[in-house]
Structures are given as structure tokens and as C-alpha cells.
């Protein structure tokens, strides 16, 4: 693909990249939305002291925080960043059980932002 495309003007290649990114961004949101059930399950067992559940939630929040902004989903990135910060905080690391209501709120905010972003891409 590189050989075929390298003769194209830069603006044309940039426009094609933008277009491709919109498609990839849509797939990214589909993938994110499909993961919420697993994250709700992880949250449900957090109270048992399941370290893998906390790790799964942290990885999920981190991935969405870093990746969604690349596609321009800034509200989703911010919500995931807030959840990531909460999960990394002393409050959660010290006593996950007491933080479950806050984590649930954070996860719900991420889901709402993902759904809003998905609605936005669907209406393009």
C-alpha cells in the first residue's frame, strides 16, 4: 500500500487517513461497548478482594483513556481518565470495597460517554 500511495499528494493521503480513522473509530466504540458487561462483572466481584478484577478495570479504563482521544472522542477519554485516576488512587487500592459505589458511578459515566460517542458516529 505504501508504494501505491506514496505518489499521492499529502493532502489526499491525509484526507484518506481521516476517513479511515472514522471507520476504525466506529469499530473501536463497538468493541468498547461490548466490554461493559465484563466490566460490570469485574465490579461485582471487586468486593471479594479479587485482584484480577481490579486489574481488569484498570486496564479497561487506561485503554479507553489513551485510545479514544486518538479518534477524537474527548468526552469519553476524560470519563475514562477520571475512572483510571480513581482506580489508581489510594482510596481504591487501600479498600476497594468501600470505593465500589464511586467506581460504579465512574463506570456508568464511561458507558454514557461511549454511547454518546457511538450515537454521534452513527449520525455522521
Amino acid at each position, binding site marked *: 500500500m505504501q508504494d501505491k*500511495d506514496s505518489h499521492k499528494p499529502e493532502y489526499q493521503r491525509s484526507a484518506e487517513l481521516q476517513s479511515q480513522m472514522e471507520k476504525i473509530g466506529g469499530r473501536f466504540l463497538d*468493541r468498547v461497548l461490548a466490554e461493559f458487561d465484563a466490566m460490570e462483572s469485574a465490579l461485582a466481584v471487586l468486593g471479594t478482594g479479587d485482584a484480577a478484577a481490579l486489574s481488569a478495570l484498570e*486496564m479497561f479504563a487506561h485503554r479507553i483513556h489513551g485510545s479514544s*482521544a*486518538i*479518534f477524537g472522542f474527548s468526552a469519553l*477519554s476524560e470519563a475514562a481518565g477520571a475512572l483510571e485516576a480513581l482506580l489508581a488512587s489510594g482510596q481504591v487500592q487501600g479498600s476497594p470495597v468501600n470505593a465500589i459505589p464511586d467506581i460504579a458511578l465512574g463506570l456508568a459515566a464511561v458507558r454514557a460517554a461511549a454511547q454518546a460517542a457511538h450515537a454521534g458516529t452513527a449520525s455522521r
Partner: protein
Amino acid sequence: MPTRTAQGGGNLSRRPLQSVLYVDDEPDIREVVELSLALAADLKVESCGSGEQALKVLPILRPDMVLLDVMMPGLDGPGTLARMKADPLLAAVPVVFLTAKALPAEIRRFLALGAVAIIPKPFDALKLAEQVQTIWNGLSDAG
């Protein structure tokens, strides 16, 4: 946020950047990076989804540079870099971290581990190829 680079080190050749391996567990981001780097003519881009896979393909691909995600399941970016540094065949391959963990203390830690630069996420897909090329040129200038 600008790219952070280490002073000196890395591959000191002055030839053009020809090949890059990108390592990230997120398939959508791998696709974006491949497309972004394809904006640079004559740059061959390969990607894989884990540190373990990277260590398997690196001796075969022998890329000029490796771009590593930091937080991955299994062997993470810093762990992959440590294994590369312990392998005489791979120790000199310049490694750049792409990460959302780009706070100053973390950047210092990554550079101390041997990374030549850190590109913060989110990156601008339209400028990534230029950023990578600039890092490569900086390594060459250092030589």
C-alpha cells in the same frame, strides 16, 4: 504535549529510517499507527499485539526502531524493553514508548530504562510519521 527524548544513545547510523515495529494490544490503535506511519514514504511498518510476540519477531524483522505501548497484558512495554536490553542482538534497537502515562516522573523512569523517546497518547495521527522521523534524525545527529 511534545515528544520527550533522551540525550544520545540508540542507533547512530545516518541512513534513512526504513522499518518500524509497533507493539500494542489494542488492534484499532495498531491499525491507526500503521496507516499513520504509511504517510511516510518508503517506511515499512509491522505490528504485533504483545511484548511476547515482539520478542519472537524482532530477531527476524530486525526493524530500525520499535514503538512500544507501555501498559499491555502479560509482558508490558518496560518489561519488553528490559528483555531487549538483555539480548545482545536487540539491545541497540532504539525503543520509543507511546503512552498515556506521560507524567514527568514516568517519562524520567522510561528514559532511565533505556527508551530513546516518549510519544504521549493521544498522538496526532497526521503527525505521527513526522514525530517518529524527527526522533530517528535526532538519534542520527547524536552520532
